[in-house]
């Protein structure tokens, strides 16, 4: 099947072939300070508490934190979520109650009610950080009492320090820090870092096994004790682009952190898998043989949406740090024209392989002044705006077409067999506009 190659992609590819350009890597991002219309790191608990099946995430925060969790979850998932908020009140703040004792009481009640919990995660919030409540120390003390039945760790998901997916980064960093170091002669292992849907983990596990890489672990693991010791025996392949602190901690433990484009779309997934395959010495033939069918399926899946996406002008507001990779997929595999890629934080090292594949005409923006970004977006008048839930309907009411960005964090989109689903996510609002005979 012929790939649709718009001129700017062709130009970028030519430059790349000539070794003349770094794609978007030498683009200086816009950095503005203003209102950030983004979630805080607590929000990542919404998927983490489902992923790690014997962990409980206890936010130590305010009523606002609790309200955020139920509002951002969109649905109130009433089947006993494995998260909760210990709400600080004025008795705690005025010193009438000892906050550490209060926290102990909350934890006691919680563990009594949920004896199945093996890992208790204390999660710092804006208020707990501002009043300098020492959660690492609280975790240490609780751990001394409750280990080995319950392991207690802590991290900060506060909005003053983290944006959305950075909460997962801090959590994984804490998990890795708390993981034993592997022996020097431990067998080689591959750790895939970053939360993935279970079905995608299984797909990747099968692909690696077919390449002869059997010792594969996922971070976070589905159970609290599922993370193996980490050491020089460990190669890490990041499945998510937001793991700055986790990668540092893994490297500190002696692991080798590989960088690759992230596994979105046929190209991203292939290059991502190839990076691991090369590290483990998988032969080119074997790699081709194992990935060939998946690559073909991915191309076929995406091809169904090309007529909707090719040539469309797309604007990304910052959300999950996945934006550069998503833009690269849309640009390279669906032929879309990327105008602006906003991202809450740009880790240039981790993102370099993706940025290299983006045309240098793309405008990068790190951080946010939402009012000014909305001004730019209106001026650009794109065909599709990828933005958060606070902005989506107001843009639609202006007659624009939007896609909620949070769906990219909540939908299985990585890997060959989800490439078509990923394209469909972008294509759906455009298709819907074509179908509907009603106006706003």
């Amino acid at each position, binding site marked *: 099947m012929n790939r649709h190659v718009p001129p700017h992609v062709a130009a970028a590819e030519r430059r790349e072939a000539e070794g003349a350009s770094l794609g978007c890597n030498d683009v200086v991002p816009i950095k503005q300070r203003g*209102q950030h219309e*983004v979630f805080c790191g607590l929000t990542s608990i919404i998927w983490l508490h489902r992923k790690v099946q014997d962990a409980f995430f206890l936010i130590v925060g305010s009523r606002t934190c*609790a309200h955020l969790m139920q509002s951002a979850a969109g649905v109130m998932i*009433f089947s006993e979520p494995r998260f909760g908020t210990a709400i600080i*009140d004025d008795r705690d703040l005025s010193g009438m109650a000892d906050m550490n004792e209060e926290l102990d009481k909350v934890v006691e009640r919680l563990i009594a009610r949920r004896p199945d919990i093996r890992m208790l995660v204390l999660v710092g919030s804006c208020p707990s950080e*501002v009043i300098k409540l020492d959660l690492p120390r609280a975790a240490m003390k609780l751990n001394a009492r409750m280990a080995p039945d319950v392991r207690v760790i802590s991290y900060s998901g506060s909005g003053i*320090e983290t944006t959305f997916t950075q909460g997962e980064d801090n959590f994984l960093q804490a998990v890795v820090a708390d993981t034993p170091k592997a022996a020097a002669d431990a067998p080689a292992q591959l750790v895939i870092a970053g939360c993935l849907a279970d079905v995608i983990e299984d797909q990747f596990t099968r692909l690696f096994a077919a390449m002869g890489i059997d010792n594969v672990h996922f971070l976070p693991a589905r159970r609290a004790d599922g993370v193996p010791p980490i050491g020089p025996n460990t190669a890490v392949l990041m499945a998510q682009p937001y793991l700055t602190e986790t990668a540092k901690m893994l490297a500190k433990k002696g692991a080798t952190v590989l960088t690759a484009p992230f596994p979105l779309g046929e190209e991203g997934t292939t290059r991502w898998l190839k990076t691991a395959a090369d590290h483990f010495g998988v032969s080119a033939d074997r790699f081709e043989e194992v990935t060939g069918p998946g690559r073909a399926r991915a191309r076929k899946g995406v091809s169904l949406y090309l007529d909707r996406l090719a040539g469309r002008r797309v604007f990304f507001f910052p959300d999950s740090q996945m934006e550069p990779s998503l833009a690269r997929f849309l640009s390279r595999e669906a032929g879309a024209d990327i105008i602006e890629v906003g991202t809450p934080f740009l880790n240039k090292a981790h993102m370099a392989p993706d940025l290299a594949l983006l045309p240098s005409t793309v405008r990068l923006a790190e951080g946010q002044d939402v009012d000014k970004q909305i001004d730019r977006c209106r001026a650009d008048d794109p065909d599709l705006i990828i933005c958060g*839930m606070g902005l989506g309907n107001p843009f639609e009411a202006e007659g624009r077409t939007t896609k909620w960005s949070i769906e990219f964090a909540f939908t299985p989109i990585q890997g060959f067999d989800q490439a078509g689903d990923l394209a469909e996510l972008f294509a759906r609002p455009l298709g819907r506009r074509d179908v509907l005979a009603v106006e706003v």
Partner: protein
Amino acid sequence: MQLTVWTYEGPPHVGAMRVATGMEGLHYVLHAPQGDTYADLLFTMIERRKKRPPVTYTTFQARDLGSDTAEIFKTACHDAVERFDPQAIIVGASCTAELIQDDPGGLAKTLGLDVPVIALELPSYQKKENWGAAETFFQLVRGLAGGRTPRPKPEGAPKSANILGPTALGFRHRDDIVEIRRILDALGVEVNVIAPMGATPLDLTRLPDADFNISLYPEVSGPAAQWLKRTFGQPIVATTPYGVGATKAFVREIADLVGTDPEPVIEAADERLSWYSRSIDSNYLTGKRVFIFGDATHAMAAARVASEELGYKVCGLGTYSREFARDVRAAAKQYDVEALITDDHLEVEDAIVAAAPELVLGTQMERHCAKKLRIPCAVISSPVHVQDFPARYSPVMGFEGANVLFDTFVHPLMMGLEEHLLGMFREDFEFNDDAQASHLAALHGHTTYETIKTPEAQTAPDDNTQDVVAIGSEAASFGSLSWTDDAEKELKKIPFFVRGKAKRNTERFATETGVNPITIETLYDAKAHFAR
């Protein structure tokens, strides 16, 4: 420190947002960390508002704490006034900003802005959303109407009223005010201002011109209405026009205030609840046990309608509005129940299980809980979700509101004849209580009564969780009692919606009379004993 999973109310600054978002020409500058902007989506997603809430967040970060968060606030405030050109602004802090004590009110005043600045002090660690809305509205009214003189009215001019209380994200506020306006029109009363919803700061300066105030949602409008009464002598119409009786009382109260005859308005009312409730097919509603929980205004009013206008038996009444605990306790006494005053949804769930109701009228929380327990339910109060903003006209106040209430309170129940047939032919292979009621979505495959797989028919598309839970009322079983096999089989012939109650009554009866094991005889002895 209190362990919380779900909350009935957000923090007080969200209440302030509900006021600001309901109004026009007002802007809210909120000193808050990154992430607090989540509150925008309540309005843009749940209420599907077409505009972003008029809120500027300073979104300070950890690195700003060491330098100058106050400067960030001043810049944000200045930029917001320039960009949005509001008639007035309100300024305040969210929970985190409250801790860093930057004093947004004081800072805003130093900027020399050419619009009125109303400073809000909303203690986040003590108070909650509705209090925040009431305080914000009160401060706005006091700040903008204070010191004004009512405009003199020409002789013979029609009387006029303010409708106070409707906000953004309010339960059916959008449609209620249409209904109230309709009643005022019929009585020949002019609407002076509706606020906060739809009002501008300039409109608030005209509040004193009205002859009286309608405090439609006291959770929000109470303090402002009281202040207007004290300051300008405006009487308050405090009857909540919810249900037929209360709406008639509301009409009469206003007619009395303005000196007109209410009866033609009442006679002309297009109200069907009364007849529907009197009609013979509604007989089976008599004594239906209903558990009611919500904000104080809606919960108390719903109890009155359920009891007086539909003939239900109120078996539980409660509220999360602690500010109105006394009123709700007094109301509960009329129904011989102990009022439940709590903001812990697990406590509400326990109370529902204990009360064994046949219908739950509650908030979105109780809807989920009732779904787990397989009890029919309708939502009558905030907290709200998308489906509480129906596309159709759907007030709960006024005469049309009463019509809506009849449907809302009755339709979740099985229809009368269907209930009878279930009672008579309990073992019909395709029409039994393991099958869902016909008005609910068919469950695929056979489901045993102990475990249920939702979603049910009313489930919104946002709600695709699969709850598999033991029925609470079944689980609540007395200690060491045993049942004979025959008795247990007989128990299963009782339709599921009353089986829990039958089981507990029988076990209580057995305990009290010292019977063990429970036989078929015990079951029917207990039935005779507890016959209602």
